[in-house]
């Protein structure tokens, strides 16, 4: 639809990046376009069992566990050879197999580990550490069956520059995000936000509805404004992850499970290895076995929204919003990357595919 129909000015890309602030941020994030991720289930064991855990949905939990360091070394070398530059180690719980995490780190030194934070991962494994938080300690006890989780996580990762806490909003813990963020701020930690995304077939009370999405949006906005030094997020992250439509409906998911294209981008490079070091294109996704229509997961958005640069290069505000999202993604996932101040401080509607 052209501008004579919409009444909206059409911008050239060169006009958008003529703004020196936009240009500087674009050049900053552009240096990281070389990142190519794949993910790896390190073990099928975990020291807590959370309701709604995606790992224990589907078949992957039954894959045989390979603990042989040489096998992992061979796999990671092959991954590096085919162009993978960033690894995401997940699980069940990677902290239970630090020797395998170390093998990965020695071969591909950029990456992140998703952990429940109850066991400290040795400092020499210098990946970003994503510590999952599902509410205050009372809620964690109910949902994760573990006592004093947040208190233990804070102690375990105090003054650890690798650490960032990932607060997963569910319908039952929205208000608790305030006390958790305040506590993390007091202790000098960083926090980013995730959305509970239902596993396939999940019918429990943690699935979001329009009301809980709206309340989550309001709470995230409050916290972003109140704790700018602690909360690693942006207005556009809030838009993308709390819209009634999921990420796939808004942006078209670029992971192989929903993306038939195998020539370029994630459809070409991304693999999700199970604990037996096998992978399946039909299941390859950052959060396999999630109900794609309900997916608002932060890890999915990191790739799905980021990949849609072209759509956001329609006007300066949309492009600023996209840059904020990418800047946030890099600050969450890449160690030593420092997030800049957000460029767009209001809600921008996601672009349509035809925009």
């Amino acid at each position, binding site marked *: 639809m052209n501008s004579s129909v919409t009444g909206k000015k059409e911008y050239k890309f060169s006009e958008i990046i003529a703004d020196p602030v936009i240009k500087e941020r674009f050049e900053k994030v*552009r240096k990281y*376009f070389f990142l190519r991720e794949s993910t790896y289930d390190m073990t099928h064991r975990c020291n807590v069992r959370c309701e709604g855990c995606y790992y224990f949905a589907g078949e992957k939990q039954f894959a045989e566990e390979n603990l042989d360091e040489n096998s992992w070394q061979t796999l990671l070398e092959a991954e590096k050879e085919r162009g993978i530059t960033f690894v995401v180690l997940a699980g069940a719980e990677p902290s239970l197999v630090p020797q395998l995490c170390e093998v990965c780190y020695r071969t591909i030194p950029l990456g992140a580990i998703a952990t429940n934070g109850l066991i400290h991962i040795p400092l020499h494994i210098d990946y970003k550490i994503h510590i999952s938080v599902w509410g205050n300690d009372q809620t964690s006890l109910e949902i994760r069956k573990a006592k004093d989780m947040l208190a233990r996580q804070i102690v375990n990762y105090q003054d650890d520059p690798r650490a960032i806490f990932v607060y997963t909003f569910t319908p039952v813990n929205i208000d608790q995000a305030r006390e958790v963020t305040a506590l993390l701020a007091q202790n000098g930690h960083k926090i980013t936000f995730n959305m509970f995304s239902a596993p396939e077939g999940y019918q429990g009370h943690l699935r979001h509805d329009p009301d809980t999405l709206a309340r989550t949006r309001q709470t995230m906005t409050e916290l972003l404004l109140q704790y700018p030094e602690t909360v690693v997020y942006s207005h556009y992250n809030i838009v993308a992850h709390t819209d009634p439509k999921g990420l796939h409906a808004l942006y078209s998911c670029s992971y192989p499970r929903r993306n038939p294209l195998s020539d*370029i*981008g*994630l459809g070409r490079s991304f693999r999700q290895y199970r604990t037996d070091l096998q992978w399946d294109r039909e299941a390859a996704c950052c959060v396999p076995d999630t109900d794609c229509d309900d997916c608002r997961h932060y890890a999915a958005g990191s790739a799905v929204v*980021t*990949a*849609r*640069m*072209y759509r956001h290069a329609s006007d300066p505000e949309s492009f600023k919003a996209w840059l904020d999202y990418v800047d946030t993604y890099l600050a969450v996932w890449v160690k030593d990357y420092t997030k800049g101040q957000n460029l767009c401080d209001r809600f921008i509607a996601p672009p349509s595919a035809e925009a």
Partner: protein
Amino acid sequence: MQNDISQTTIRIAQILINELKLDDVTPETFDPDLDLVDEVGVDSMDLATVALVLRDEYGIRIDEDDYPKLTTVRIIAEYITNKLRSDD
């Protein structure tokens, strides 16, 4: 038409060289049949950037779904030429 495609090919090579900072090649020596992904190392984000510059230069929209088809400079030149023709 052959000349148009040839000129377009050189211009696209120039844009690629500028955007991807391929310092060791000139537009005239850039092999237009190199596979951009396998042989030049272009990824989807690089291609998105190049697509935006091409959008400015030629006033055409490059559909995201078409990215995988744009495998060489020559193919991009043909794509643009066809787009411009269909817009006439």
